[in-house]
């Protein structure tokens, strides 16, 4: 299991409540395909309350992706929606769940330099 993926799910589990998922209820299953086989992560969402586990349960939305690809998504190196349109991420089941969930993935780390300058200007005012 990769560190980035583990850190992403552990941080999500530690939060227990995620406001960006406040309107969602249902279970997402992430099937991460690696050299050692497929690893399953289950994320149960109940109006923003989040529970993360490896324990099998019925999923409303299944996300299938290579471990390496998912690593890049959770570390801001790849945009999940573009990857899904490219066929690198396969989604089955309830789309609203994953559309809400993808908002938790970080943006590219190189972005926002000019933006922070603008923020500085505002703070100086």
């Amino acid at each position: 299991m990769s560190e980035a993926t583990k850190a992403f799910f552990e941080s999500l589990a530690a939060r227990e409540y995620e406001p960006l998922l406040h309107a969602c209820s249902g279970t997402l299953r992430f099937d991460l395909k690696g050299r050692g086989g497929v690893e399953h992560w289950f994320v149960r969402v109940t109006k923003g309350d989040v529970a993360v586990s490896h324990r099998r349960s019925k999923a409303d939305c299944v996300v299938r992706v290579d471990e390496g690809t998912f690593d890049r998504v959770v570390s801001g190196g790849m945009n999940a929606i573009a990857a899904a349109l490219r066929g690198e991420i396969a989604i089955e089941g309830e789309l609203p769940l994953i559309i809400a969930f993808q908002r938790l993935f970080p943006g590219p780390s190189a972005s926002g330099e000019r933006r922070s300058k603008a923020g500085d200007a505002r703070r100086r005012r």
Partner: protein
Amino acid sequence: MTGDLVKILDGNTFVVSDPRGDIDASLSDPTGLFSWDTRFLSRWVLTIDGKRLSSLSVDDLQYYETRFFLVPGSGTVYIDAKLSVIRQRAVSDGFHEQLTILNHDDRPVDLEVHIEAGSDFADLFEVKDALEKKGDYGHRVEDGRLVLAYRREAFSRETWISASTPAKVDRAGLTFRVHIEPHGEWTTDLHVVAAQYVDGGLGPDRGTSRASDMKRGLDRWLADAPRLESDWDWLRVTYERSLVDLAALRFSPRSLPGASLPAAGLPWFMTMFGRDSIFTSLQALPFVPDLAATTLRALAERQGTRIDDFRDEDPGRILHEMRFGEMTAFEERPHSPYYGSVDATPLFVVLLDEYERWTGDRSLVRELELEARAALHWIDEYADLMGNGYISYQRRNEETGLENQCWKDSWDSICYRDGTLPGFPRATCELQGYAYDAKVRAARLARQVWKDPVFADELEKQAADLKRRFNRDFWVRDGGYYALALDADGRQVDALTSNIGHVLWSGIAERGKARECVRHLMGPRLFSGWGVRTLAEGEGRYNPIGYHVGTVWPFDNSFIAWGLRRYGYKVEAARIAAGILDAARFFLGRLPEAFAGYARTKTKYPVEYPTSCSPQAWSTGAPLLFLRTMLGLEPAGDHLIMDPALPKGIGLIELLDIPGRWGRVDAFGRERVDMGKAPRLGRELGPQPDGQRRRRRPASPAS
């Protein structure tokens, strides 16, 4: 040539063909079967015994269905056909085409009927810009059907072609050996599937419906809308046209099956847009309020959460445009989604409040509290690029992002009086109005729904401060109007434009200054007789056929009229409504995106600005908003206030069964407003006035 194309669609699956029903596209040619921004057929040519056919007529049945009447040969002088051919085509998960051949002779015939099929799988953007493909093509025949395939890495699309009768299938298409008895007929059903990712594999799109369901859906849509009665026949024609076109413009996001929002334009802009979907939802609120609910939900689901320069995304920002094709997938275009509009975010809050005022649906306001707060936060924290307390824009995606991120998004729309262009960032005046309105409206929601009076007080304080500063910094003293924008140095971009009408609509204008703006809006430099020009006559860049520098936009005018009503200028609002609605008559009730800014006294009829998309959603919505402003409809608590002011020439408007928090109510307008020497409304129905040649038939919004 575009004028002769035949278009049918359902959502963002559509077919554009020539009047024979044939598709024979080059890469840059906008014909074909398209679905989710990919072309699935670029060749679809019918021949009989090796010969192409000629079109006798095209019968546009509905926006999703059409019928072609053909005869063999290309006889231009006279046709002596023993055969007739009918192609009836309806959009589905691709399309269904019923091909029928009638033998009128008293002898039997044997024919070779051939459908040639091929696809370049072009992305919509590639069709616009004529770009080359990067993937590999393939084809196979399986289970009697022809499969055309395209693959680039994991990206894959297929077109499946089958027929209900036996055919010889090879890579070039389908061939039928047909024997028809004297006065007999032969028929086959062709089915083309645009196969895309569904549940992890390739297959037909789940969201599509059958022609009969679509007919029922359209009937229900029309029956649910308020009924209009008027002594001015053209108003009824325009109203019905708008309702049917709005039905055709519905787009159902995959995340909200069964619900629909207005896409921006048909067929090339059949996707979710922040600005266009919001403006159209606002226009349509008194008629079909569900559109607004879906728009709000779909935009909220995709609200920005991170900083991404390529997509011009920030936390809280509402998207500009969403696309699904190959170029978006491979990040050659930023539309996954692209966030480069600066007005959609405050307008999102405006729509949420206006929606609640009409429908009383507080549960949606509660559901979207977080998103509304994030949008308000974006206005202060991310949109204030110059640190001067105003919303401004400058793209971070320098390559494929949009330069002008306001509704006037062409390159030269933002200009000084002398025609020169300012640098970036640019803070246009209407944006400050939208921000003001968003804060005022959010304060009401905070107090009444979110139960947060502290936040409400804060928003009201900010709004009052913004209004004071705006009226000081944007007011052009020697002109008596609001500057189009402030440039990066805080200097006024001083051209006189229609944007001051949106300033009125937002409520940010001080009363005295509003009066001076109204004088300009109705004066000869801005008002053409048909409507308010985007840029005033006499400005450096003024051009009556310049996209945003002199043309008249029906959508723009509908919001200007709303602004005039907001400040109590009923007569002026009615005069603008009369001008634009009278212009609609020249387009059989379907207003174009824009028409030329020539003075009405000069041309006598409105000269259409050529665009590839028709109908456009916010032009379709304009007559609806004009009905609202003419009748003076305004929700107040659980009641609907009516304060009609009709233009001279309309004696009566009755709008029956207006839906809202009051249930259903009727509105009547009989008052006559004298507009002085304004031209009378055209009355004749039937043949078009001289100088206008229109191909469109009232039966089809998609022609």
